[in-house]
């Protein structure tokens, strides 16, 4: 028995004498413990390193804001010692679901005003301000293997096109643009947020994806952008919604509308008021 235990160098096996079910169960238990451990780390990760005087602002934001908000939060923390901005990015619809289910958050930034519709009005404290706006653009791998030069090319059956799911703002906007252009795109996958959509192009698995102009700018040389004509393109206004009256939150919300923050947004391809 002892020799059997030592046969699994990773020590996952446990007591082999309990038989098949026990053996597999012990492996499962180890896997489960690992999974729980990982989940535990990510949940408590934000708490670590918080001194007693540290002021924390929790921001839930649309995926497309990943690069710009990360940069703005760094700027803010650098100029406001003792503050800690915690960012979490997901599809706007996911953010709204999280807030409605009671997720702790001080600020919410969403892609498009319609995404804010289902947000629980009871949680909104400070009203809504316009953070930035964004338009759609086609992203292709740098070499453009599918030879995509216009939105009408997306209907070619040999092409692998990836869109956001219709439940998330980028998918809803892409569907509108395609419908206005009269194009039935040859879609192979509907991804759950815009960064996952972009990733399929960055990895070279898809020939084209409809994402935001800001995503194409942030991705730099890793993708190539193909313009969508203004006549069919969609513009999304990003509302910034405050959920608490905490002073640090108000300070960060004000900072997000400053010239310094707007420059970061413009550098990443957003339009600012």
């Amino acid at each position: 028995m002892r020799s059997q235990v030592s046969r699994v160098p990773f020590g996952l096996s446990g007591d082999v004498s309990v038989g098949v079910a026990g053996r597999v169960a012990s492996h499962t238990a180890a896997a489960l413990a690992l999974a729980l451990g990982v989940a535990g780390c990510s949940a408590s990760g934000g708490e670590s390193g918080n001194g007693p005087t540290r002021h924390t602002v929790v921001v839930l934001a649309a995926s497309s804001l990943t690069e710009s908000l990360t940069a703005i939060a760094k700027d803010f923390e650098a100029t406001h010692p003792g503050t800690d901005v915690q960012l979490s990015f997901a599809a706007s619809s996911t953010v709204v679901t999280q807030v409605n289910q009671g997720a702790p958050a001080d600020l919410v930034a969403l892609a498009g005003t319609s995404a804010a519709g289902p947000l629980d009005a009871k949680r909104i404290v400070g009203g809504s301000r316009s953070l930035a706006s964004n338009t759609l653009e086609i992203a292709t791998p740098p070499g453009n293997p599918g030879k995509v030069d216009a939105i009408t090319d997306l209907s070619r059956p040999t092409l692998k096109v990836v869109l956001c799911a219709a439940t998330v703002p980028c998918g809803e906007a892409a569907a509108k643009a395609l419908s206005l252009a009269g194009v039935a795109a040859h879609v192979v996958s509907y991804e759950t947020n815009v960064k996952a959509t972009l990733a399929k192009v960055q990895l070279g698995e898809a020939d084209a994806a409809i994402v935001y102009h800001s995503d194409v700018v942030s991705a730099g040389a890793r993708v190539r952008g193909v313009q969508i004509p203004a006549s069919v393109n969609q513009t999304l206004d990003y509302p910034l919604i405050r959920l608490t009256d905490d002073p640090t939150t108000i300070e960060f919300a004000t900072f997000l509308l400053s010239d310094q923050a707007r420059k970061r947004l413009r550098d990443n391809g957003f339009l600012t008021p």
Partner: protein
Amino acid sequence: MRSVRWARAGLVIPAWVAIAVLLVPLLALLLKADWAGIPAHLANPTVVPALRLSLLTTSSTLVICALIGTPLAWLLARSTHRATPWLRALVTVPLVLPPVVGGVALLMAYGREGVVGRTLLEVAGWSIPFTPVAVVFAEVFVALPFYVLAVEGAMQGLDPRYDGLAATLGASPWRTFRTVVVPMVAPGIASGAALAWARALGEFGATITFAGNFPGRTQTAPLAVYVALESDPQAAIALSLVMLLISVVILGALRGRWLR
């Protein structure tokens, strides 16, 4: 006496906490369901194709696991080679790996730009991602370790003298494997198959990463639940209940005969 009672409470209370941890979410699912509306929610156009795809891909996964996993289990159980323990450890890696990481690894291997996938595209003009085949790849990757470890455990418990006896009666190793070993470890194979199938049915991370999400083609039931949660939560609950029911029925059917 008192200390015994306290010791027992010390075990019984955490045990009940454990039961609550497992049961509360499942009961909540039952309580929150709009039972009268379930038939209508199941008529949601994504539900039936997702269930069909899940059943199709998980049964393919099971066949592949049995065909390639049983010989590997036999190898691990009987080989005395120095490398065997390392091989066994390798088999357990996908078991503890986050499924999303498995999906990324599959893309690196079989994606259009992948180590194997690039050649496949050049030679066959075909790529695996975004196809039901990719779903099966993802499911086999995560489910095979469960199958192999369960079957190997059963084979470990099989007295090697049976093999020797069969050999002295003139049976070839292949015939011994087929007519002696496999029938004798049938309970182990059944429990391994049940575990592997359950793991494949629940597969999410590797599937969405490697196969994408397209209704009817790569959107399995767990993916449909995830997507529906934002647009039609009651459809997500209805589909979850169907998956719960299928799992309970299959495990219940196996329990009496095979699982202890």
